[in-house]
C-alpha cells in the first residue's frame, strides 16, 4: 500500500457527516494507477457516499482528496478528471445512443469528426457499434449499462467510478458484464473504482478491496488478504461463508466451546475462530456434529453442521459422492485444517 511514488488517488482523513450522523468516518485510502479497486460493504455502510465524494457530488466534512498529487477536494464533478457510471445509468432519454456517448466531448467543443470517431471507438469497446442511432428506451438493461460505460470511458477519465454497476442486471448478464469490465480494464489500462455489496463481484473484478462497515474502513488489501486473513470479525463474517466459533484464550492457548483447542498467541480473553467451509472435512477423531442441512450447488455441496456447542459450522465439499455422504440427520465427526483467530469483545 505504501509507495514512494504519489498514488493516483489519495484520500486523507476523508469523512462525511449528515447533521449529527456520521456517514463516513475519517479514512485514508491510496489507489495506484491501473488498480481495479472495490469498495465492499453492506447497504448503508457509506460506500456510495465515499464514491460520490471522490466524484465530487458530495462535499466532504473533513479531509482531502488528491488526484495525481493535485488537491481536488473543493472542485465540482465537472472539473474533476473522474467519470462515473451511475447505478441507475442516468442516460439522456432525449438523445440517441451515439449522442449520449458523445455528450461530454460535444461539450468540450471538439470537432464533429473527432466526436463521431471517438464515439464509434467507445461503442466498439462496449460492443454496441450497431446501436448508435437507437433511442435509449429501445435498449435492454444490459445494453443501457454498456452505453453508460461508453459515455464515461470516452472522456478518458483518470479514474472511472462505478456505483453498483451490475446491481440491476440478472445473474447471467452480471457475469457477462464482469468479464467485459475485466476485458475493458485490461484493454485500456485505466484505473477503476467500484462500489458493491457483493463480495463475489468484488473478488472477481478487483485487485484491491476496501471493506467498509458503518462508515468505517475495516480492511484494505488484496482479495486473498481479505478472504484469508480478515482483520476484523465483521470482515470475516461479511466476506465469504465462514463459520465463527466462540472460544477463550488463556496463556497462548485457545479452547473453543465446541471442544477443539490449539496454540494461538495473543491477549487472554474471548476470541472467535474463523473457519472456512472448504477447509472443513470428515475426520475420525474430530468434533461430533449433526447434519442439519445440505444444499447442492452443482459444483459443490454446502452442508450445515450443528456442533455440541450449538454453533453452526458450514462445510463445503466438491467431492463427487458428497451428496451421498452428507444426509440430513447424519451424525459424524469433522475437523478443519487451520483457522484464523480474532479477538472478540466480551459476549
Amino acid at each position, binding site marked *: 500500500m505504501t509507495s514512494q511514488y504519489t498514488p493516483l488517488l489519495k484520500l486523507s482523513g476523508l469523512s462525511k457527516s449528515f447533521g449529527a450522523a456520521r456517514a463516513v468516518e475519517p479514512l485514508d485510502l491510496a489507489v495506484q494507477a491501473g488498480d481495479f479497486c472495490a469498495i465492499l460493504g453492506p447497504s448503508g455502510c457509506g460506500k456510495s457516499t465515499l464514491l460520490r465524494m471522490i*466524484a*465530487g*457530488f458530495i462535499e466532504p466534512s473533513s479531509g482531502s482528496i488528491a488526484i495525481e498529487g493535485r488537491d481536488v477536494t473543493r472542485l*465540482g*464533478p*465537472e472539473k474533476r478528471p*473522474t*467519470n*462515473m457510471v*451511475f447505478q*441507475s*445509468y*442516468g*442516460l*439522456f*432519454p*432525449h*438523445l*440517441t445512443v*451515439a*449522442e449520449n*456517448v*458523445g*455528450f*461530454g*466531448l*460535444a*461539450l*468540450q467543443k471538439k470537432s*464533429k469528426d473527432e*466526436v*463521431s*470517431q471517438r*464515439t*464509434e471507438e467507445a461503442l466498439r469497446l462496449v460492443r454496441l457499434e450497431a446501436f*448508435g442511432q437507437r433511442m435509449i428506451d429501445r435498449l435492454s438493461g444490459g445494453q443501457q449499462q454498456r452505453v*453508460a460505460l461508453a*459515455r*464515461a470511458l470516452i*472522456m478518458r477519465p483518470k479514474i472511472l467510478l462505478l456505483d453498483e454497476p451490475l446491481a440491476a442486471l440478472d445473474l447471467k448478464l452480471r457475469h457477462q458484464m464482469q468479464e467485459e469490465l475485466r476485458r475493458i480494464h485490461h484493454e485500456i489500462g485505466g484505473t477503476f473504482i467500484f462500489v458493491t455489496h457483493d463480495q463475489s463481484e468484488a473478488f472477481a473484478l478487483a485487485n484491491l478491496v476496501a471493506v467498509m462497515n458503518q462508515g468505517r474502513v475495516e480492511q484494505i488489501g488484496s482479495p486473498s488478504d481479505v478472504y484469508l486473513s480478515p482483520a476484523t470479525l465483521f470482515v470475516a463474517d461479511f466476506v465469504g461463508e465462514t463459520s465463527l466459533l466462540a472460544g477463550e484464550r488463556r496463556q497462548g492457548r485457545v479452547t473453543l466451546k465446541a471442544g477443539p483447542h490449539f496454540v494461538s498467541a495473543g491477549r487472554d480473553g474471548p476470541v472467535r475462530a474463523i473457519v472456512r467451509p472448504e477447509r472443513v472435512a470428515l475426520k475420525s477423531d474430530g468434533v461430533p456434529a449433526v447434519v442439519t442441512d445440505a444444499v447442492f450447488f452443482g459444483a459443490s455441496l454446502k452442508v450445515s453442521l450443528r456442533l455440541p456447542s450449538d454453533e453452526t459450522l458450514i462445510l463445503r465439499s466438491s467431492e463427487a459422492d458428497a451428496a451421498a455422504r452428507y444426509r440430513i440427520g447424519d451424525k459424524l465427526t469433522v475437523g478443519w485444517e487451520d483457522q484464523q483467530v480474532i479477538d472478540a469483545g466480551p459476549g
Partner: protein
Amino acid sequence: MRRAILLLAPSFTVLIGIFAIPVLLLFVVSFWSVKTFRLQPDFSFAAWQRFFTVYGDLTLYTLAVGLAVGLFCTLLGFVFAYAARFKAGRFGDLLLVATLITLFGGYLVKIYAWKSILGADGLLNQALMGIGLTDQPLAFLIYSRGAVIIALVHFLLPFAILPIYAALRNVSETTIEAARDLGASASQVLTRVIVPQCLSGLFSAFAFCFLLAAGDYVTPMLLGGTSGSMLGQFVLLEFSTNFNWPAGSAMSFGLLFVCLLVIGALAAMGSRLMRRSPGAAS
C-alpha cells in the same frame, strides 16, 4: 374493441352533439348575411371581408397579447416549477398544492383585485404618492395593455406551472448528475438536459396560456380601457349589440385559425428542436 366503442360512445355523443355540430353550424353562419336583424342563409364573404379589413390590426394585437402572456407564463412557470422540483426538497409538492389553491380564487375576483391595485386611487398609486414619487395618480397603470397582460399572467400562471412541473417530475436527477460529471456547466445542464426533457410540458403550458389569453374578453373589458381592448370584446359586441352573427362568427373562426397556425408552427419548431442534437452525430 366493441367494449372500447361502447365506453367511448356517450362522451362522443355529447361532444359531437353539443360541441362539434354547433361549432360547424356557427362556421356556416359566417357565410350568411343579415337583413334587418334577421339571419339569411347566403353564401357571402362579407363577414370575412369585414374581419380582415376592420379587425385585422386588432387581431394582430390580440395575438401579440396572447403571445406575450404565453411567453411570460411559460417563463415564470418554468422558474417556479424548476424551484419546486429541484430546490424546494420535500416542500415541492406543497408549493404545487398552493398553486392549485390559487385556481379556486375566482377569475373576476382576481381582475377586481388588480383593479384595486392598479386603479387611480388604488394601492400602487397611493403608495407612490405616499412616498412622494409622484404627486398625481399614474393613469397608465390601469386601462392599458400592460394591465391586461399583468392580470392575465397572474390568472393563467398555474396553468403553466402544472404541466411544466409534471414534465420536470420525469427528469431524473441522475441525468443531471451525469451531465455535470461529463463536464456540463450549470447553464449547459439547463439547456441540454433539463429543457429538452421537458419540452412537451413547456409546449402545453405555452399553448394553454396563449389560447386562453388570446380568446379572453373579460379582462380587457374591465382592465384594458380603450388602448387595451382585444378581439374577443368585439366578437361579443357583434353577436349582442350589433346582432351581426356572420361577422361575429367570421371573427371567432378567424382568430381560431390564426391561433391554431401559431400553435402548429410552434409544434413544428419543437419537434425540429427535439431532433437537433448537441453535437455528436455518427
